[in-house]
């Protein structure tokens, strides 16, 4: 299974995240926003149909979060911890390999 490029950040933030005041409110943990699981915002979720995917990378290029990364074969992996469900990936997918479906909660 492919790993999120933010795996190290997620592990680090779980260990080191602190509200302790720093001089000038400087944030010393790069990428620590990963603590916010923005997937909870989602109303529609992208459903991926690998059989239709031509690995054009457009979804990967466009995702604003980014909540799409690539697996070992360069297929997109959807990170539902962060995907806000905007649907840009599905809208731009030239082969309709991504379909937005109502979130099952």
């Amino acid at each position: 299974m492919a790993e999120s490029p933010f795996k190290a950040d997620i592990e680090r933030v779980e260990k080191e995240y602190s509200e302790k005041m720093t001089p000038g409110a400087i944030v010393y943990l790069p990428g620590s926003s990963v603590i916010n699981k923005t997937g909870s915002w989602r109303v529609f979720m992208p459903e991926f149909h690998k059989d239709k995917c031509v690995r054009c990378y457009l979804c990967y290029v466009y995702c604003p979060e980014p909540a799409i990364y690539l697996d070992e074969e360069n297929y997109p992996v959807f990170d539902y911890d962060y995907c806000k469900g905007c649907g840009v990936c599905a809208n731009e997918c030239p082969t309709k390999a991504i379909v937005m479906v109502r979130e099952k909660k």
Partner: protein
Amino acid sequence: MPIKKVMKANEAAAWAAKLAKPKVIAAFPITPSTLVPEKISEFIADGELDAEFIKVESEHSAISACVGASAAGVRTFTATASQGLALMHEILFIAAGMRLPIVIAVGNRSLSAPINIWNDWQDSISERDTGWIQFYAENNQEALDLIIAAYKAAEDERVLLPAMVGFDAFILTHTVEPVEIPDQEVVDEFLGEYVPKHAYVDPKRPITQGSLGFPAHYMETRYKVWEAMENAREVIKEVFDKFEKTFGRRYHIIEEYKTDDAEIVLVTMGSLAGTVKEFVDKKREEGVKIGAAKITVYRPFPIEEIRALAKKTKVLALLEKDISFSVGGAVFADTSRALINEKEKPIILDFILGLGGRDVTFQNLEEVVDIAKKALEEGVKEEVYWIGLRKEIL
């Protein structure tokens, strides 16, 4: 060996900057401070100072560039006055909040309107709540020395706050006096290199500076600035001690002059202290028990020192070149805060004078003493007096 040169306070400030070796300087011309960046340009042109001088398009960008450079972890310097400092106002808060020990030389000048290029302290006094340490120099030597001391205090890890050093427009900025220039090696030894542990812009250690503080965190950041300013009290004393050991000149948070048996103490700042001390000598010869006190460090406000001074005297007469409308001078408000809960305290009177370059004469000071005496004998009728006002043209 230190050398003596005859120079203006602006040149002394440029020399101080040269000796402190800031890596980045950003400045914009403004009367009466323009000579500072001019002199620095000469130093750089002659290869005597190795710094990046950013010739910015405004004071707002001058301080913003200093914030950027200081955030990147280097020593920075700028000089300004009056409207220029006022234009920096927004970023002054940010420099303090981001805990960046930038140093500004301020040629203390009035604020418009009407536009006026001459001396008073309204510019830097108006910045007293920004979180900057403030020093006021009495003469050109002090301008040089206090800038070097300012770096030492500002960069101390217990402090990490920016600092401004004020010296009076024209009275000092454009007046020549002999100034001793310390040896570079001695200054190097005194200041050391600035290598901050907290702030840097280094791709190897990516950090985020200038974050957004929600209500859950903002107040603590302000408290941290308060704490740093409190720490600055002790740090500045240490710096002044070390300064004396290193350079042989003694500085005090408040410098007292003939205060031990004084019934009236004239408290002031900047170059006016010189005039006041002379006046005290004259009155002493006449048998009047008066003294003087000069506030060298205005932020952090010297609360303990004011209390100690208050114990010695019956009237504190504050001579101020600034005004907070409907209240009086800023030093008056601050002094009142220092003494408000003291069981015994002297009468505190506030005298607004010398605004926009109005001369402060011995005759003005006689008037101050007369009012102080009268208050002592008959009780306080008014707290705030405008001295030297041309009532005939009002």
